[in-house]
């Protein structure tokens, strides 16, 4: 069997006749993951990062290396001796100079094709006087900025559904969390590992006919041992239905009987194609249906008026017509077969898929770019539309937090500790020194007053925060640099599925968890 990765490469690089150019060679290892479509999305993206901390520059490093289009780093502070000690993108000589400029200078060296800009203004001033600035980016990331400013920025972006997504990152010592704020997020290439239907249960006419026409008995042993299992199953199911009032095997006993009928067709004990048919026989009784997540989406009345929304509407119309399936995928898995039979079978699927793609296109009420239609149809079974939430919304819903405390105890406890740290930082008057255990616990109790907290989890989290409330540890920064950049890439490329909610990280016991918002 071939992985999806190689299928994508085949599609994306089908024209390369000679050794690829330098750019393709440079990006080879990532193109095998997100292909040219993902790369071009990355190259068109403009990312704003606020705060030139070690964590922030680590995130940027992992966006500059794969070739993001543009970065702006916004920071008005100067490099401190502590900054020069924990940030790879500062040197001793950076001390006293502007943090954004110093970091951008060294980040830009990583990749010539990235446009990199330092903005030395104070984010507070920008928020006060230049709000449209933020709408010029495709994604905004912050690290440990003042809670009041973060709240203002998050609210500003949330107020407009077409704003860029926001990823606020928080860390202290060995603990961290980040949130992904977006209204909706459209994904066509989800790269889901669920296999697509081969329509064994609902064979299209050409497939059924081809399967029926094969003369198994007249074949010599070589040909018989190379019949693709798709034909074997389609035929066996066809025969079965004829004998069972048009119904597929349903009970356990019937399924076993179906399998033994397949086994009985074997000429020799080790006919691999019949073994494959038995292994794949679930396809005969698993109905090809619209995946539940799509049924749910179709039921949603607020499908956006974007090309993706139009495609989704057409997909709904398509799936409403008999035989109530999604357009056929062209990808046929490898199976025991001679070349000729396999290529013929592949062509049957291709022809049918092309036909269904045209039927799909005819159902579009608003015209959509051809390539996008093709991409959408090819990935139809995995398309997703995520609905996100506003940063801070979870903290405003104590009943949700309470529920999370029951099932996601350590994640919620760590999140509450960060909430408390922010509340402490925002509450005047600020004492000298860091927060104390009791101060943080007071903030937690005031948020979820009526809940019995898990003492161990709370003290583990609070204890680590008061130990190192302002520490941006190099390894934690590097970890966040990777994991946040990864979410940024998923958001930008609209491939794979990003975190929806908080991702909470504990690098003492080395775990991560997700807290849905």
């Amino acid at each position, binding site marked *: 069997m071939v992985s999806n990765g190689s299928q994508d490469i085949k599609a994306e690089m089908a024209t390369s006749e000679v050794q690829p150019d330098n750019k393709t060679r440079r990006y080879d290892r990532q193109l095998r993951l997100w292909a040219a479509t993902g790369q071009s999305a990355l190259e068109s993206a403009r990312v704003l990062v606020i705060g030139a901390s070690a964590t922030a520059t680590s995130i940027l490093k992992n966006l500059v290396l794969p070739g993001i289009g543009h970065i702006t780093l916004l920071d008005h502070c100067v490099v401190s001796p502590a900054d020069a000690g924990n940030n790879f993108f500062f040197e001793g000589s950076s001390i006293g100079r502007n943090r954004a400029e110093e970091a951008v200078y060294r980040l830009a060296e990583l990749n010539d094709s990235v446009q990199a800009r330092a903005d030395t203004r104070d984010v507070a001033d920008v928020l006060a006087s230049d709000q449209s600035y933020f709408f010029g980016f495709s994604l905004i990331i912050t690290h440990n900025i003042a809670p009041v400013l973060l709240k203002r920025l998050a609210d500003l972006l949330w107020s407009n559904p077409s704003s860029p997504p926001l990823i606020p990152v928080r860390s202290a010592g060995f603990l961290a969390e980040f949130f992904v704020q977006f209204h909706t997020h459209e994904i066509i290439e989800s790269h889901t590992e669920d296999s697509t239907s081969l329509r064994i249960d609902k064979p299209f006419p050409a497939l059924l006919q081809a399967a029926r026409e094969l003369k198994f008995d007249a074949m*010599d*042993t*070589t040909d018989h*041992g*190379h019949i693709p299992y798709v034909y074997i199953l389609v035929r066996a199911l066809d025969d079965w239905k004829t004998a069972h009032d048009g119904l597929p095997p349903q009970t356990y006993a019937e399924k076993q009987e179906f399998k033994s009928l397949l086994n009985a067709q074997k000429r020799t004990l080790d006919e691999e194609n019949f073994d494959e048919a038995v292994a794949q026989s679930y396809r005969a009784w698993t109905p090809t249906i619209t995946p539940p997540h799509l049924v749910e989406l179709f039921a949603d009345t607020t499908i956006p008026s974007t090309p993706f929304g139009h495609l989704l509407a057409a997909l709904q119309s398509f799936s409403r017509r008999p035989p109530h399936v999604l357009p056929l995928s062209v990808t046929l898995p490898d199976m025991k077969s001679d070349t000729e039979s396999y290529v013929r079978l592949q062509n049957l699927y291709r022809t049918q898929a092309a036909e269904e793609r045209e039927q799909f296109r005819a159902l579009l009420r608003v015209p959509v770019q051809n390539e996008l239609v093709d991409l959408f149809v090819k990935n139809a079974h995995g398309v997703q539309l995520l609905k996100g939430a506003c940063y801070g919304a979870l903290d405003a819903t104590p009943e949700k937090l309470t529920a999370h405390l029951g099932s996601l105890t350590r994640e919620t406890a760590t999140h509450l500790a960060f909430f408390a740290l922010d509340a402490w930082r925002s509450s005047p008057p600020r004492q000298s020194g860091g927060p104390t255990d009791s101060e943080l616990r007071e903030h937690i109790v005031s948020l979820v007053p009526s809940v019995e907290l898990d003492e161990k989890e709370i003290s583990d989290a609070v204890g680590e925060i008061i130990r190192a409330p302002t520490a941006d540890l190099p390894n934690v920064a590097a970890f966040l640099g990777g994991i946040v950049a990864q979410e940024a890439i998923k958001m930008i490329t609209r491939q794979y599925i990003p975190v929806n909610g908080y991702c909470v990280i504990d690098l003492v016991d080395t775990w991560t968890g997700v807290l849905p918002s």
Partner: protein
Amino acid sequence: MIKIWSMKKNEEAAAKRKPKTSAAQIRVQKDLTELDLPSTMVTHFPNPADLLNFTLTITPDEGMYKGGAFIFSFVINMNYPHEPPKVKCTQTIYHPNVDLEGNVCLNILREDWKPVLNLNSVMVGLQYLFLEPNADDPLNKDAAEELRRNREQFIYNVKHSMRGGYVKGVQYANVLT
């Protein structure tokens, strides 16, 4: 540093120092010394001190290849048993599942290799090819075609090839014992 050593002392059965023999080598020793081969199969080590390179001679005592001695080379690398041994037939032989370069079509030598298999399973698999040549998934297409179409002719070709004769313009090695 964490006090690993104190953890070690708490271990019930503190492991003792182990010899500097690689896992691959111990595994090969285990495989070889536990070989249970019929008299039709004999291993030969050109250098008895080198367990990773040797040959296996198969002399079938039944079937159409009876009377021949077929020699396979085994090369084992340090990634054994994560990787299978590399096995080739050292002679040009007329067999549907062995090509003229000595490549052998045996599933457990490639796609179905698992570390739980051992040298014994490979050798038994090789011997089976001489008892039951498989015409349906061939490497030597001409031979397979013949076996399918005309078994008598095929057997004749086998005998002829084993004497060092030509079949369809290809001269085969004399493998008679």
